[in-house]
């Protein structure tokens, strides 16, 4: 496959998924974060994997101002770009479609995010605990907490 022109990639994304792209941020050197509507995640992830031939790296869940953020990290190994898809989930009912049926590599990390943050992945083939079996109750999620006080300084 031909190399991707990153100058026009934002245009391509906007053309294909017009209203699903909420924000595009080019960070540092060869790093791109694309904030999308969570309903469009499987479609855009599929476009990344099938059309653009990106490699799935991992997903990072985190607590954000308005609920939870998940960043799905993809790598373009031909050009050294790192592209992350960002979805924002509601705090009261954090749910998003699973990518595990699309790519097996997403299976474990979705189980991990599920148990650490309590985020539900719809249509996941087996959303059981991955790392903390027997350590926490089913409704306790160790990483889910209120947003940290702004600019809290850790004592040295």
């Amino acid at each position, binding site marked *: 496959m031909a190399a991707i022109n990153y100058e026009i990639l934002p245009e391509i994304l906007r053309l294909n998924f017009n209203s699903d792209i909420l924000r595009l941020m080019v960070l*540092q050197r060869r790093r791109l974060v694309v904030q999308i509507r969570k309903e469009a995640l499987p479609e855009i992830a599929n476009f990344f994997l099938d059309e653009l031939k990106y490699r799935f790296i*991992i997903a990072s869940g985190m607590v954000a101002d308005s609920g939870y953020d998940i960043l799905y990290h993809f790598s373009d190994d031909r050009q050294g770009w790192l592209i992350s898809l960002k979805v924002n989930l509601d705090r009261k009912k954090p749910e998003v479609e699973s990518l595990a049926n699309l790519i097996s590599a997403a299976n474990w990390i979705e189980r991990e995010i599920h148990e650490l943050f309590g985020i539900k992945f719809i249509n996941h083939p087996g959303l059981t605990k991955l790392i903390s079996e027997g350590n926490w109750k089913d409704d306790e999620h160790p990483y889910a907490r209120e947003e940290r006080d702004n600019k809290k300084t850790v004592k040295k």
Partner: protein
Amino acid sequence: MSTRTVIPIGPYHPLQEEPELFKLYCEGEIVRDIEWETGYNHRGIEKINESKTFDQVFFVVERICGICSTSHPFAYANAMEELAQAKVPDRANYIRSIIGELERIHSHLLWVGLAGHFLGYNTVFMWAWKYREMVLDIFEKITGNRNNYAMFCIGGVRRDVPNVHISDIRKMLDKIKPKLDLLTGAVMDDPVIHARTKGVGILTKEDIIDYAAVGPTARASGIAIDVRRDDPYAAYPLVDWKVITSEGCDVFAKAEVRLLEMYESVSIIEQCLDKMSGTPEGDICNHVKNIPEGYSFGRAEAPRGEVFHFIKSDGSNSPVRHKVRAPSYVNIATFKKSCVGQTVADATIILAAVDPCYCCTERMAFAYDCFSGKQIMNGLDLIRISQQKTNDLKMKL
């Protein structure tokens, strides 16, 4: 339906970043399914880092893995320097690459030794670990530690490698090269090793892409990915080297890739030493005062594959979120493809082939009969049947 026996491998393994328990579901000799359990030693390092300052995080991430202890600080430093837009001095970049490559050599030697042990070649095990000792000695000389070198900081390295030590490193490299030839010859030319590892534990290109496997596991299936080349960092773009791949897809290909990679590492170190001697001594760190707000991503090629670090900073002196992805996290998941359909005798070498460090695991492994609950086999038996298979092959030749 035939009787299925469960053979658990694991769970405790003090050397490993991810202690785990594999349950092999076997029908007779054939593995039919595999299940994975973990969390036995979950340390919550990502959570711990939220209460550490950016400088302290180095010492925590260094302890994620005992064998490739530089790979995590490497990825973390790459992430932080991108965020702070810090320029690392040339000499620090060369030192970083030298440490990274020395570590690759000793990690691969450790793997070769273990693989030899699993196959019943204890001579290979003793040789490989003996030669690994030379690398650890050089680490002790230049960093003060045989492992957990504590060399990295944001903006450079913490200690210089003075020019007087360059000749020591060169001497060690000259000594280790013939030993690598010896090991490579022992593995490549042995008909029994060929019989035990060729066509065993096949991972096709599609499997690798589906499970997003990285490092030598992916390169042994013909997928040429290497962060050192694809997303260059430290001194790697400044020296001449190549990415080793093999089309074999089996255990033998993984061994071949690792053995040949050690030669590339030796060559990278030699070039770095040449270039490093021309840079001013002591110019090793540009200190960073403030870490701005934002996201940052860092990658490094560990001996086992790509290490990925994600950091969210809010402008204070500690990370708000720190996500770590070790290469074994994606590589271990491939067992579902590589083990199923193989024999129990081959399972140990297939599991070992992705290098999840299995040297102590066997002590904890027991096989129980599903129905009676009676113990019928333990980890040492597993090693024994693997070694027995090699012996049988030797007798036939």
